[in-house]
């Protein structure tokens, strides 16, 4: 395992921010830490990158304990914080050179590394401009670039797309996916379910400082209930005769009616589509819309906590 989080707890006075968290991340994986604001994601990654000391437990990065070999851990890790931790009065390149020096990149290698990361985040053209003249998306990309400078074994990204425009967000996510293809391991925290689903093969869901679910994306989706929901909007009001007809279709588990809407739970929504459409036509029912929705992490979070991820 490249990263092991063992029995990790962090308390601030009486507030328990992280409680007995255990996670293991193999090399080459993008591991998602999903949870609402205040779930303990930032506290967890702050301990991993040595900014906070744990109250209990330990973090092992590439065989080094963050408690006993903090400097060795920091040499293996690149950090992209949630905040835009940049110097506005310096140019993009000056920011990179400064943080490169802090990361102990040898002077002979530094210019090449700076050029490389500028190229990755597509900021080469603006490298000599002051950062306070950059757009929000450009600052986000530079924020990511600094985390890549030391070619880390483990890249920690704490909500790296907060407040960014869709185009820049896509650019960042694609860049991260490409870096992962090249072998970089990542710990990615977010409260955006879509990002985690897009990037991460393994996911842990945090709530109130505890891991409430942990596993591969498929495993977690199965835990969400494993049922697809087919929603049909009719031209006319649905009635009990229709319910009887639809319940008889193969694979249908339940049918709910509300005015013009019909909600059907089934093991496979796509398998149900053809017999469903035929039955509706045969019955002379006009259809205005039809949607198949697979279970997702939002559903899982809802079923586990009773609240939405964005609450």
């Amino acid at each position, binding site marked *: 395992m490249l990263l092991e989080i063992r029995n990790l707890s962090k308390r601030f006075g009486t507030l328990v921010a992280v409680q007995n968290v255990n996670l293991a991340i193999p090399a080459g994986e993008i591991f998602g830490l999903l949870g609402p604001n205040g779930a303990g994601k930032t506290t967890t990654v702050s301990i991993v990158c040595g900014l906070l000391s744990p109250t209990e437990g330990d973090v092992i990065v590439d065989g080094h304990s963050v408690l006993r070999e903090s400097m060795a851990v*920091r040499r293996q890790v690149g950090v992209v914080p949630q905040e835009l931790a*940049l*110097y506005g*009065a*310096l140019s993009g390149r000056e920011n990179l050179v*400064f*943080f490169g020096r*802090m990361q*102990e990149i040898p002077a002979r290698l530094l210019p090449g590394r700076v050029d490389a990361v500028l190229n990755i985040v597509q900021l080469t053209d603006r490298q000599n401009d002051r950062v306070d003249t950059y757009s929000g998306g450009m600052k986000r990309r530079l924020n990511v670039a600094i985390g890549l400078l030391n070619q880390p074994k483990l890249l920690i990204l704490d909500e790296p797309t907060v407040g960014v425009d869709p185009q820049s967000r896509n650019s960042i996510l694609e860049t991260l996916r490409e870096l992962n293809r090249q072998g970089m391991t990542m710990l990615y925290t977010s409260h955006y379910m879509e990002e985690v689903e897009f990037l991460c093969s393994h996911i842990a869901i945090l709530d109130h400082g505890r891991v409430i679910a942990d596993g591969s994306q498929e495993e977690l989706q199965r835990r969400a209930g494993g049922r697809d929901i087919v929603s049909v909007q009719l031209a006319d009001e649905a009635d009990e005769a229709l319910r009887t007809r639809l319940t008889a279709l193969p694979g249908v588990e339940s049918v709910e009616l509300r005015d013009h809407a019909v909600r059907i739970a089934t093991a496979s929504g796509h398998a149900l589509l053809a017999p469903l459409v035929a039955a509706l036509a045969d019955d002379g029912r006009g259809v205005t819309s039809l949607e198949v929705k697979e279970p997702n992490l939002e559903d899982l979070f809802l079923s586990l906590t009773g609240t939405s991820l964005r609450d």
Partner: protein
Amino acid sequence: MKAWYIAVKDLVVHTRDRTAFVTLLLVPMVMIIVLGSVFNWNATSFQAHAVVVDLDGSNLSRQLTQQVLASPRVRDVLALTTTTSEAEARTLVEQGKTAAAIIIPKGFGGGAASGAPARIEVLENPESLIQAGVVASIVQAYTTDLQAQRVAISVATSVLEESGAVPPARMGEAVRGVREQADAGQPQDLIAVKTTALEGRKVVPALDYYAVGMSLMYLIFTANTGAWNMLEEKRQRTLARIMTTPTARLTVMAGKSLGTLALTALQFAIIILLTRLLYHVQWSSSLPALLLMAGASVLAAAGLSTMVAALVQSREQEGALGPAVALIYSLLGGSMWPVYVMPAWLDAASRLTFTRWAIDGFSALMLGGGVSSVLRPAGVCLGMAVLFLGVSAVALNRNY
């Protein structure tokens, strides 16, 4: 080396801020010249200006104007001009062109010789009370002595008459002899003004004093900028980002302190240079002594501000506390007014501030002292710097 990179980065960030540049250099330079002009004193060259009108023209009035007021020892403190018109003398006083006018009326000499009331008028300019007071005191001393002389002659004459030692026919001749002996005395010795600057009470010219005072005050303000910058980095999380790199906490803090130190040292060096070139401030004739005193002052200012930054939790708290500390140190330490006009209790309290010791040190240098004259004040400043930085190290470790 990393501490150096952090310090250089801070300096670059500061030099790109034009507002900070104005605060750093322009404001202190203006303050020095304004305060130096307003409180313009120079104890070593104090001179009262007076105009004298001799309407009498008697031997006695000439004795006063030519031998007493113009004697070399009085001349050191009294610059005298003469006029023949009482009206002109009054006008000069009214217009503030002279501190006082000495008017010797017609009949002054005759009256004094005959024992009749004789009066010299001194017109004082209310805006120059100290100088006018000096003029009045000199004239008063002369008239008091003159009166004593006349009394002595009168007594001597009476004694001669009563003793019968001198025949009545020769009494007139004897009295004239006594008067001639009295008049033949050394009138310039009647009044002697001796100025002696006591050790430790010498003062430097106002402009020079305020060059020191204002420099020290802005040194603290500039150091505060460095402290504010540290809290700003904490808020913007750039400090935390540095902490995620393999850089020791102590190195980060050393780098930040070094940046503050470099900034204040740069400001102080430029102010010393500019005040020397533009205002001819005589900082010191000994470069090693100047470097020692300046270095100790810069360290103490940087230490004080670093301590404030370490003790507070936010930029807002520092924004309130930092300037307050700077003002207290400046007021108490003597940046705003001369330390030697302070009452005893304030004088004692001011010694708790490094600014007071720095002012003492720089004053000693301006009065011609060398390295030995600043060992004590520089030592106290360095001691305070160590204390401030020690407290900072403990607090920074806890709060960052």
